């Protein structure tokens, strides 16, 4: 491996999140064209297309890389398509980065987009008695928010988190997203409004839980040499670390869509890091930094309560102290380490294959000082975190 394992981010682009009901390819193309224009590159300059797949839009979604490439006009570029649930975007970034670092290409385009159905995410159709994702709905009626609620309740009983804390996360993120042109929800909410919204999965209410959205995001990644030649002597925004780790046995936290955790009888005790703790740790290690170096973070607030778990899992504070961090205002804009300055999933809703890419887009704009109305002043290091169903870790460190 070369000593410098960074790749440059020359372009970022997004299609606004919403419930537009149009073909996902349209969102992906808008994002891709914006990212290319931002990079001052043409589509035909792209040597590698890395698509993040969607499983709810038929066959074109399963081969998203080729779908976007065809829509942009066949150019003979190398192409890959990958699915890793919520982590698909990070997996697509990892594929592009690997091609660049291996010297197989200099310019890569990463694209993810989704069109989502209304309501709870349900498993893919059919009678599939050997698919745990199908079975958890059939045998348990366990929706995604039900799993989020298990973590939220545990925080309340172990660490004294309150419904008001969860609501305060929502209030913070709603405020952050007010001026983000790509956010779907741009409206302030109060703690009282959150606590008056209908209970979905106790203790989580409707306004604690992220929606499902349409949206698209794209990045242009290049080798550092190409970027210096193309962009001149200016400061480059770079991908300094990407984590796509799996959990380590025994996985002791119940995870969607599982019926059980791993059994720890053969592991001989001694608790290691949890899966979520290990995700960003691997990205930090690649980047040669630690959580103390982080100026801002974009984390997967599938529920407002889950954002508090992430504070601890990405190392912003020890376990049990996330509520204090929140209450002290450390994670709000203007605080020590703002979390989800974009507004997060709270303001976006989730467009699965686009979301991890969108997290990186936000870091790029923040580090360039282009995040109008939500700017984290002087930000130089940002981190993203999320995880995909079954065990796809996803974390990207972006530096300037």
């Amino acid at each position, binding site marked *: 491996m070369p000593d410098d394992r960074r790749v440059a981010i020359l372009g970022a682009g997004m299609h606004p999140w919403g419930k537009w009901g149009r073909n996902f390819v349209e969102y992906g193309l808008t994002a891709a064209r914006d990212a290319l224009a931002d990079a001052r590159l043409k589509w035909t300059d792209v040597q590698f297309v890395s698509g993040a797949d969607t499983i709810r839009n038929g066959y074109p979604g399963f081969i998203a890389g080729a779908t976007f490439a065809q829509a942009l006009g066949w150019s003979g570029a190398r192409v890959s398509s990958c699915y890793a649930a919520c982590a698909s975007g990070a997996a697509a970034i990892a594929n592009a980065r690997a091609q660049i670092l291996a010297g197989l290409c200099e310019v890569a385009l990463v694209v993810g987009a989704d069109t989502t159905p209304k*309501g*709870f995410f*349900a*498993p893919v159709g059919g*009678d599939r*008695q050997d698919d745990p994702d*199908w*079975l*958890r*709905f*059939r*045998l*348990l*009626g*366990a*929706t995604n928010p*039900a799993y989020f*609620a*298990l*973590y*939220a*309740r*545990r925080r309340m*009983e*172990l660490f004294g988190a309150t419904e008001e804390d969860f609501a305060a996360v929502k209030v913070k993120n709603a405020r952050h997203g007010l001026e983000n042109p790509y956010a779907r929800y741009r409206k302030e909410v109060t703690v009282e409004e959150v606590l008056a919204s*209908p*209970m*979905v*999965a*106790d*203790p*989580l209410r409707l306004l604690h839980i992220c929606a499902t959205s349409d949206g698209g995001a794209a990045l242009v990644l290049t080798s550092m040499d190409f970027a210096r030649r193309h962009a001149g002597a200016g400061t480059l925004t770079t991908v300094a670390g990407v984590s796509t780790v799996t959990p380590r*046995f*025994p996985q*002791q936290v*119940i995870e969607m869509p*599982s*019926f*059980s*955790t*791993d*059994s*720890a*009888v*053969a*592991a001989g005790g001694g608790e290691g890091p949890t899966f979520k703790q290990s995700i960003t740790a691997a990205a930090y290690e690649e980047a040669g930094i630690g959580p103390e170096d982080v100026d801002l973070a974009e984390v997967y607030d599938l529920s407002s309560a889950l954002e508090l778990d992430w504070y601890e899992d990405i190392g912003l504070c020890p376990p049990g102290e996330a509520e204090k961090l929140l209450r002290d205002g450390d994670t709000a804009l203007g605080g020590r380490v703002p979390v989800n300055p974009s507004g997060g999933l709270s303001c976006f809703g989730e467009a699965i294959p686009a979301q991890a890419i969108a997290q990186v887009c936000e870091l790029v704009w923040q580090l360039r000082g282009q995040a109008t109305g939500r700017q984290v002043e002087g930000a130089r290091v940002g981190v993203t975190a999320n995880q995909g169903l079954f065990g796809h870790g996803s974390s990207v460190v972006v530096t300037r």
Partner: protein
Amino acid sequence: MPDAKTRRAAVDGWFTLDESAPALLGSRCTGCGTFAFPRETFSCRNPHCPGTQFEEVELSRRGRVWSYTDCRYQPPPPYIAAEPYEPFALAAVELATEQMVVMGQLVDGVTVADLEVGTEVELVLGTLYEDDDHEYLVWKWRPLDRSPAGAGSALVRGGSDA
């Protein structure tokens, strides 16, 4: 009066149909002892174990609540909901012997107000859904405090669940 419906499992081979003392059917690796539910058939989940042989085991019938929630809105298919929909509670339950956590619905009538992290629960059979001829059963958790007289929680409090 119509004939009583036939009671059968909503999924084959995941639990016993012993009405008085049902148990989840898991597997235990003959090499390293790692348990799994639902049962493992191909390869042990322990990355340090090359095991491919498993014995079927009944898992502990009692455990403690790791966390809990409920489902206020009707889950989407393939969940088969009663009409009208009745919300139900869900729990993730720690089994001491197996050192694992297993999900399950709570029995009808139990709400989140009846639960805490650490509440002791016992496995029972409950109705998941019905059709004209059958009642389809699934495992459910029942707090020990709510079990019939004689099966009080003092029996297991402080003891193992083996």
